[in-house]
């Protein structure tokens, strides 16, 4: 599992032509989740939430590829910074559907003769409904901030394309419904700990890497303690 992303809006800004920056872009942005965080922000169409990430900058010469024009003036203009643009992209939470699963393919093998892995997982109703809001709000924010030529986009691609793999050996209270206990220890095999993102249940909208590190530190501390007590 993974967040769902690649939905949002971009636009251009008229003005501020006397300003530039050094170092690729002025700054990145992060807009924390603001929907379904309390009773006043409930959305009737979906549960959980999303955040936005994005950046702005002035178009470089590559804007010429899609612009109509050739010749001396065209080329010389491309030496100068173009208009300001801003893009904001939503990252949403993906719910932990029980039907998601990974299995070994019954017949297909990889080049080492091992069975191929079959991923059977996908975005469902909650994610699709959330994406509509992610797209609409992004466009509205840009519009109210004074951007022009606003274009929305929605290209869901697939699980794993947001780079933050989560889940498959989820953490839970019972071996009937989960693989790991609260110490990242396999319920049924106590001397095995899984300390990457496999323990995640829901795929939250934010970057999970620091959470993985914290969980790993906690699991390691627990394991050391248990070893000292000769419980492992």
């Amino acid at each position, binding site marked *: 599992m993974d967040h769902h992303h690649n939905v949002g809006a971009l636009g251009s800004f008229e003005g501020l032509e006397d300003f530039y920056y050094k170092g690729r872009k002025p700054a990145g942005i992060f807009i924390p989740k603001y929907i379904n965080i309390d009773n006043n922000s409930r959305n009737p169409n979906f549960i959980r939430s999303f955040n936005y990430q994005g950046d702005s900058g002035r178009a470089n010469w*590559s804007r010429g590829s899609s612009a109509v024009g050739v010749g001396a003036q065209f080329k010389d203009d491309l*030496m100068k910074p173009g208009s300001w643009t801003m893009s904001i992209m939503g990252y949403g939470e993906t719910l932990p559907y029980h039907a998601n699963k990974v299995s070994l393919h019954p017949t297909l093998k990889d080049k080492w003769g091992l069975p191929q892995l079959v991923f059977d997982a996908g975005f469902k109703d909650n994610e699709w409904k959330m994406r509509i809001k992610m797209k609409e709000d992004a466009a509205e924010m840009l519009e109210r901030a004074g951007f022009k030529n606003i274009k929305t986009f*929605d*290209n869901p691609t697939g699980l794993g394309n947001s780079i933050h793999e989560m889940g498959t050996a989820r953490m839970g209270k019972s071996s009937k419904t989960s693989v790991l206990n609260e110490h990242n220890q396999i319920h049924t095999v106590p001397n095995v700990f899984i300390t990457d993102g496999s323990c995640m249940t829901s795929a939250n909208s934010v970057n999970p890497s620091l959470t993985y590190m914290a969980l790993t530190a906690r699991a390691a501390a627990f394991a050391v303690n248990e070893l000292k007590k000769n419980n492992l």
Partner: protein
Amino acid sequence: MNRRDYIKNTTFLVGYTVSVTLIADLLASCQSSSSLNWNPVFFNKHQAETISEIADTICPTTQSPGAKDIAIPQFIDRLVQQLFSKEDQAMFIHGIEELDKICNKKYSKDFKDCNKKNKEEMLIELDKMSAPLPLTMWGKPLEAHPKQLTFYRRIKTLVLTGYFTSEKIGKEYLAYDPVPGKFIACMPLHNQNSWTE
């Protein structure tokens, strides 16, 4: 492929082992003839001349060098030979043939033999007919069903990529800052060119 991929895959090509050609081109730049003074590795002579003329019509010599002056046609010739699939290579050749067909109908000449005004007219027309490049952000395609790119949109992208990522333009014309050091989020723009990137 995006620009970063081009550069990653073609560092050895854009390294410009063509300084001899460059000098020869500069010497020849006052001639109006479109005859080739280099040996293409992928295109035949006519195709290479056509590519050269397209490149130089998009990026002619001004106070900065033109596409031919800094061997952009050679760059495209190598790139198409070494990095393009058989289908994409065929599309390029077909694109050149189609361009000549239209030019023969309109101007009774192949593209490379048309005068400057007609070449510009022709390319602007193709520009208007060609879908823009699909939107991307951080290298991710944002459109689920991007429009098919035409020959012209692709060759124009190659010309501009070759031209603006070249050592000559990057070092001597764009704002070259190889050891960037300080990050400045906002600063006045004093008539400088874009950063080399």
